[in-house]
């Protein structure tokens, strides 16, 4: 293996991590902004630097939008005193925030963000084009709950412990429904687990105007998956791990400074990852709707098509991130037993029935109509 290939791969990985982390970071700012807009407040709009205010119009707009808030927050997390409680289990206490953030960054390896067309061959823009992409993501993203559990346990304190236990119970319950809701999607896409191919399976139109997105073919799957996604990312209304209304800060009560920052960014990295996945699986990734109604079938060849498809995909992901934030400020938090009830008695049966119906339906279709 020659050196240029290695250097290029590392460079691509670094760029991907940097972009992904900044999107996750700005999701935090977006959360504060959306929260304040929904509450009829302006939100963070003061943090700035003289050098940014010196830019004529843009500087002022950026300040009002809170765009300078992220470096300020990050800097604060970096430079403030790092509290280290005396009663914690030191090794796991330090390990937990790392374990919480790493899976989100690892799953992004197989996340395609666009496609390059060269001579009618579509190549997804992705760090590692694995054929088991989706399985890889499912496996790794559930690892992040270990961060929560370890944090709750190693903090050696009552509230974090309860938060950790709740988080683990919640993730176990919703992981099942999530996996089952995805099986019919895999079958529909022709049995592939490669995310790029799943997006390609969703291009095209139904009756000439409805996009062939999975959400229109499998709305129940989409609903179950989206609900489980909220639970998996510990977002409200499934905010069991943190439950700041009754558990102080939940699993990160004993954390501060940069270690808390890692948890925080980790949560939003999962939100970003989850949104990207939902776009890939159910909203057709970078598919060209509504332009393909008017006869634009494919992206242009080469770099231009790559950039355009990436922009479309990222925009869709932003919309879904906004949906995550929007739901948080709409729904109140579930009680613990309500979450268990919803997970085991509602979502799991729905997912199983959904799987059976689609399996039988597809088998019948292939047997009698397709042959």
């Amino acid at each position, binding site marked *: 293996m020659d050196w240029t290939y290695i250097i290029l791969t590392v460079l691509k990985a670094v760029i991907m991590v940097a972009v992904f982390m900044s999107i996750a970071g700005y999701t935090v700012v977006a959360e504060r902004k959306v929260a304040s807009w929904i509450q009829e*407040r302006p939100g963070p709009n003061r943090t700035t630097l003289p050098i940014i205010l010196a830019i004529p119009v843009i500087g002022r707009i950026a300040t009002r939008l809170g765009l300078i808030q992220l470096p300020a927050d990050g800097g604060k997390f970096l430079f403030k005193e790092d509290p280290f409680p005396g009663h914690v289990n030191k090794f796991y206490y330090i390990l937990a925030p790392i374990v919480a953030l790493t899976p989100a960054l690892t799953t992004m390896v197989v996340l395609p963000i666009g496609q390059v067309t060269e001579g009618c061959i579509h190549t997804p823009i992705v760090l590692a084009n694995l054929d088991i992409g989706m399985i890889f993501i499912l496996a790794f993203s559930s690892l992040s709950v270990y961060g929560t559990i370890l944090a709750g346990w190693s903090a050696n304190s009552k509230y974090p412990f309860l938060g950790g236990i709740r988080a683990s119970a919640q993730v176990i319950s919703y992981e099942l429904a999530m996996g089952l809701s995805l099986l019919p999607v895999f079958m529909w896409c022709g049995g592939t687990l490669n995310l790029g191919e799943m997006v390609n399976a969703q291009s095209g139109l139904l009756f000439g105007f409805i996009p062939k997105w999975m959400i229109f073919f499998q709305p129940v799957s989409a609903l179950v998956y989206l609900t489980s996604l909220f639970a998996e990312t510990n977002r409200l209304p499934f905010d069991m791990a943190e439950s700041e209304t009754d558990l102080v800060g939940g699993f990160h009560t004993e954390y501060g400074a940069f270690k808390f920052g890692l948890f925080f960014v980790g949560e939003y990295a999962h939100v970003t990852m989850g949104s990207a996945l939902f776009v890939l699986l159910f909203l057709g990734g970078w598919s060209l709707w509504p332009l393909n109604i008017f006869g634009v079938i494919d992206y242009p060849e080469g770099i231009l098509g790559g950039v355009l498809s990436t922009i479309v995909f990222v925009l869709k992901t932003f919309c879904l991130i906004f949906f995550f934030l929007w739901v948080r400020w709409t729904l109140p938090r579930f009680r613990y037993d309500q979450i268990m009830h919803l997970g085991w008695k509602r979502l799991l049966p729905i997912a199983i029935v959904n799987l059976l119906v689609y399996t039988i339906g597809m088998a019948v279709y292939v047997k009698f109509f397709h042959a």
Partner: protein
Amino acid sequence: MAIKVVDRRPLTWAEKTYIPQILAGLRITFKKMFNPRVTLEYPEQRPTIPDNYRGVPTLVRDPNGREKCVSCQLCEFVCPPKAIRITPGAIDESDTDRTHIEKAPKEFEINMLRCIYCGLCQEVCPEEAIVLQDIFSTNGYSREELVNNKKKLYELGGTLPDKHFKWNAKKKAAEKGNAH
């Protein structure tokens, strides 16, 4: 007493899924995003202060520009946290305009670290010389800075319109020899 029976029907199938309710909630929050902001952006925008607001206590002058305080020290005595300290002094003989008054404060200090903004000083003042006005924010780097002396108090107070002109009436009565 009339009894009102509240209609509590069992939830319909659609309501049991919660989805219509969630969508309605999302609609409400989305509309809220475009409502006008209710925040008062403080340092640039100031709140409107009502007339009877109890802000920082200040000393005021009468419309003739004379100081109203006669150094009776009632405010000093009534002040619950003992924030006021008055050093009384005689009025200069040369000041012919104010011969009808016996005393004026030589020094008047209000310690804003002690003041509780109760307004008793304003209530007790027979001359309406000490008034709690609309200043609500004081700050400083040291304890000494937060003790308002006489000069500062008059700066903050300024001149307020007088309703009675008490001493003018007294003076006129004394000249005419009318003892009520």
